[in-house]
């Protein structure tokens, strides 16, 4: 057997404030059993008029139509589930179940919600950090994903969250067999939705220093 082997596939750091709200990995190798994504930094509040009462999610999408070879169908996320804790609602749960074709935002077209932190604090004091794993990426089974993280700000205690989430790809949404749900994840996108028309100074963006890292574990052929 092989020793523990953790390989950094890529690392990207946001260079300046108000420049990025979406990050994409493409052409991810398919020969690793476990992919780990580590995303940590800060994001700004959506100060667009009318957005103050909205929910602010960070999404992750996999094998989408924007990736080569997946132009026809997106793998739906079914039974996506996020569990969060906070200072006031230490056992609160947010289950996002059975979203798929025709379902409404924010889980339509295969997005997983990565935070339930709503209305984060001021423009410079909302932090987040996740470690997530895609399990069995080199196997022919339906893909699974889970993540563990934190989203904190200086707003009320209840807006500070510990995040534990998990989701599975749906292979048969609306009676359509979705081969993509069983294929290796070859592309991965994380994004910050926004209200109204995008504006770099009022829509949510990641702040300088936010890092996006992809790590791989060879698994059966090379240890964890």
């Amino acid at each position, binding site marked *: 057997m092989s020793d*523990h*082997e*953790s*390989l*950094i*596939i*890529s*690392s*990207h750091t946001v260079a300046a404030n108000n*420049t*990025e*709200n*979406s*990050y*994409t*990995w*493409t*052409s*991810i*190798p398919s020969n690793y059993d476990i992919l780990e994504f*580590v995303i*940590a*930094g*800060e994001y700004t509040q959506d100060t667009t008029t009318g957005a103050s009462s909205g929910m602010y999610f960070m999404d992750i999408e996999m094998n989408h139509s*924007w990736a080569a070879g997946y132009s026809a169908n997106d793998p739906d996320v079914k039974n996506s589930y996020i569990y969060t*804790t*906070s*200072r006031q609602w*230490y056992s609160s749960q947010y289950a996002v179940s059975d979203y798929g074709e025709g379902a409404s935002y924010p889980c339509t077209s295969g997005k997983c919600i990565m935070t339930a932190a709503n209305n984060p604090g001021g423009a410079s*004091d909302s*932090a*987040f*950090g996740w470690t997530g794993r895609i399990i069995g990426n080199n196997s022919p089974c339906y893909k699974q994903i889970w993540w*563990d*993280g*934190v*989203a*904190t*700000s*200086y*707003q009320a*205690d209840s807006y*500070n969250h*510990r995040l534990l989430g998990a989701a599975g790809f749906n292979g048969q949404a609306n009676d359509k067999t979705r081969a993509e749900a069983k294929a290796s994840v070859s592309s991965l*996108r994380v*994004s910050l*939705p*926004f209200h109204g028309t*995008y504006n*770099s100074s009022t*829509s949510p*963006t990641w702040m*300088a*220093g*936010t*890092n996006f*890292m*992809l*790590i*791989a574990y060879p698994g059966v052929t090379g240890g964890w």
Partner: protein
Amino acid sequence: MAGTSTAARMSLGAVASSEGQNPEKDWQLIAGTYFGGGTVLANLDQSYRNMRIISHNSQQSSWVGTNYMNFNNPSGYTNNTPTATAGPSFYEYQGWSTGTNYGGSTTATNVVYQYGGNHSNYGSHLVMDIYNYASTTSLKPWHWQGYVGVGNATSYATASGGYGHFKEPAIEHVNVYQDYQNGATSYNYIIVYGWGGKI
């Protein structure tokens, strides 16, 4: 493989990007020691992206106690983190006899509060990740989880966790502190890894 730049969908606006992908080995042990009732790991290596702390504790008191872990105070065994470093800090725990509890606040200075640790002949451990710990300009989100095991009694088996973020100063020092300060040196250890590559 090579990463490719990808434009964001228009509906999302703004910028997307991707870097070249050249796998490299990760993880480096940067500090570690056995200790008694508390210890300080000072002047930690600042060259890695993220930090993972693994701590295992027990002590010889006859009653339940608390494990504390605090940061950026190199002066000794302390249960506080300077306000220049401490951001929001929260904890929670659930267990047999300990019940379900939660605490902390956006101004708390006890960063890691692990109730139930240290009871006589009990073992406890926690694993903590601090992201971007060496940055001097960014907030540093962190979370931990841990467990207090059952030793010579059936009470106080407790699962626990915490979360928050640090302010801008880099995390250079880690303090561990236990309520009763009477654990044998061989009962306790802390190790610190740098991971996520070099910055």
